[in-house]
């Protein structure tokens, strides 16, 4: 009797447990798959951050419309990092410990990716970065990946196009001025530029940084002009990009090439605000309408993004950061589907081993998590006639100088004679 009773109870308990597990399994399946990140929604880089956020939200909507990931709806959990690196560690701690997110990705830019790295390494998280330059050079973290097409040696590859174009000038340049903001990205870009300067045997006649909140840049440009450099390489963030370009025009900077690493002119806001002042400036871009045929994958993204961006009041072009923000999420999506779970080690291993098909084309990562082949374009702006946005959507205003497979022309020098 006792034995039967025990068996009877055991059967009931077992039945309850089975039902309980089934219910909890259903409940787990109904729990959203949380992806956490910080994003610059206020502060100097907020315009870029908000455009990236919209792309990521479009991705989440697309995935959820197809039934989600691993049978779970995707939920983005994000906070405003205020473009302030100091907020980043606590923000990611909250995401992991309080919000219990399943995955994390980075916010926009080098300055907010680097402070998240120690925590990511401590927790062994696979970590996708959104446009951070050479962040992993010091950390050497094997679960870090970067969606920006800077190449396996980011700082050096980042500035290669500018110096390759410069060395194609006849006669070859002999002197260079290096200038940038006192911030993470400009410092790393200038480090890369110094490698090329040394390799090419150029003489550095000016090598200085400035505070990011400088109001008047004309004394800096005059000091550069006083050294009479053949080349001026500038690494800057949006407000100082505008300030330096305007100061170069006001002072009448005479040099053969000016620009290189300006963040800002990739977005509609500075393109339209600076307009003709950008003529002759060398810069980097992720896309140019002149080589549209080589970017067939981008149209699908722009069709989803541009209408939404206009409504939300952010970068209506979407040529630069937004498609890469979407592609970053596509990489994660494909890795999760392929590994069938959220095991961080398996995700990282898969991302190292396989190629991904995204809205920015085929993406394959090098051992350090950077793109295995660089694809950032070095361009020269020209023929910009006014401040309207329309002209930037058509070919004829952006000459691609590098890489050679995308090249549409040679650099027009000197800078001061290309102001039309």
């Amino acid at each position, binding site marked *: 009797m006792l034995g039967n009773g025990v068996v009877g109870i055991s059967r009931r308990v077992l039945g309850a447990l089975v039902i309980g597990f089934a219910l909890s399994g259903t409940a787990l399946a109904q729990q959203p798959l949380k992806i956490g990140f910080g994003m610059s929604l206020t502060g100097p880089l907020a315009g870029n951050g908000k455009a990236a956020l919209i792309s990521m939200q479009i991705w989440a909507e697309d995935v959820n419309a197809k039934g989600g990931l691993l049978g779970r709806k995707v939920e983005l959990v994000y906070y405003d990092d205020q473009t302030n690196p100091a907020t980043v560690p606590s923000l990611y701690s909250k995401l992991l410990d309080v919000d219990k997110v399943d995955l994390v990705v980075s916010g926009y830019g080098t300055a907010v990716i680097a402070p998240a790295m120690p925590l990511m390494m401590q927790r062994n998280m696979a970590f996708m970065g959104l446009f951070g330059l050479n962040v992993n050079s010091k950390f050497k973290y094997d679960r870090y990946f970067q969606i920006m097409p800077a190449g396996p040696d980011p700082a050096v590859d980042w500035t290669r196009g500018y110096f390759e174009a410069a060395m194609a000038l006849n006669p070859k340049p002999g002197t260079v001025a290096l200038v940038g903001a006192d911030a993470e990205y400009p410092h790393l870009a200038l480090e890369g530029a110094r490698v090329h300067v040394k390799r090419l045997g150029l003489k550095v006649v000016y090598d200085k940084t*400035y505070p990011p909140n400088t109001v008047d840049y004309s*004394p800096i440009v005059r000091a550069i002009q006083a050294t009479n450099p053949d080349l001026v390489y500038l690494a800057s963030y949006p407000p100082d990009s505008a300030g330096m370009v305007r100061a170069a025009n006001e002072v009448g900077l005479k040099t053969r090439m000016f620009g290189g690493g300006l963040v800002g002119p990739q977005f509609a806001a500075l393109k339209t605000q600076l307009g003709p002042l950008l003529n002759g400036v060398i810069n980097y871009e992720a896309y140019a309408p002149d080589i549209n045929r080589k970017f067939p994958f981008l149209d699908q993204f722009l069709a989803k993004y541009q209408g939404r961006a206009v409504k939300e*009041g952010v970068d209506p072009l979407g040529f630069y950061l937004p498609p890469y923000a979407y592609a970053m999420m596509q990489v994660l999506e494909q890795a999760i589907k392929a590994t069938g779970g959220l095991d961080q080690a398996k995700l990282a291993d898969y991302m190292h081993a396989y190629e991904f098909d995204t809205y920015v084309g085929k993406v394959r990562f090098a051992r350090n998590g950077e793109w295995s082949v660089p694809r950032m374009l070095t361009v020269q702006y020209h023929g910009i006639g006014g401040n309207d946005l329309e002209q930037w959507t058509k070919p004829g205003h952006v000459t691609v100088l590098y890489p050679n497979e995308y090249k549409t022309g040679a650099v027009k020098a000197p800078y001061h004679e290309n102001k039309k």
Partner: protein
Amino acid sequence: MEISTALLLNAIIAGLLLGGFYAAMSVGISISFGMLDVVNIAHPAFIILGSYIAYIVNDRFGFDPIVVSVVVSPLFFLLGMVLYRIYYVCFERRGQESLRGLAFFFGILFITEVALVLIFGVDYRMVSTRYGDVTWRAGAVDFPMRLAVPFLVSMTMVIGVQVFLTRTFFGRAVLAVAQDQLALRLMGVDPVRVKELAFALSIATAGVAGAFLIVIQPVQPAIGREFIGLVFAVCVLGGMGSILGTLLGAFVLGLAESFTSTFFGPSWAPAVSFGLLLATLAFRPSGLLGR
């Protein structure tokens, strides 16, 4: 680096033009903080508000941003009156103005920023003016109109404020408030009313300075925070409550920044500027023209 005459002259001109702009941003703080003892940490937020009003009118109707700022300055004046009245009723009258008043202005700063983000978004905004990209050259010396026009209007405004405060009955009443409120009350003048109008004047100058800012550089809602230290530094360097001192302090910091950027390296500019401030306070604690 070889120091040429042209480089030297341009550094002086650039420093003076920059100083003129700094004076416009700081004159309001000199009134509110220096004279009225109101720690209006939200002053830069009103500067940014002025920038956005100038931007929206310029963008929609093409009017010159500085003209717009002068036209709408009475609205800023009214805003200042309302703000001071709230501050007075909630904090000053209760003797809680020190810490809670500071928190109040911090709150105003953040609310203004968030409101601007919600209305205008987070992108950088610039205005288009006929003189924005024009540089007038006198020999080897450049006068970029982007800085020269705000400089001229700023000088008019700052000297106008100085004349108003020293030559009119009301202006003297403001100076009296700064010195002895009780004596003023005994003479039949309401110090609260005087402070209200003086604070309103300080906010009106912030609105005009905002137009200067957006003529000079692109603006986004949170950019005002970068100027909090600067405006208080100019005010303290010049001497608390001295408008001419504020003007002098602004020129000193503008010239220091320009010379450091030109001859030594721009990254040293903040250290040199604030080093000058510390040195001045060490040898003359009341500031350059403070009493």
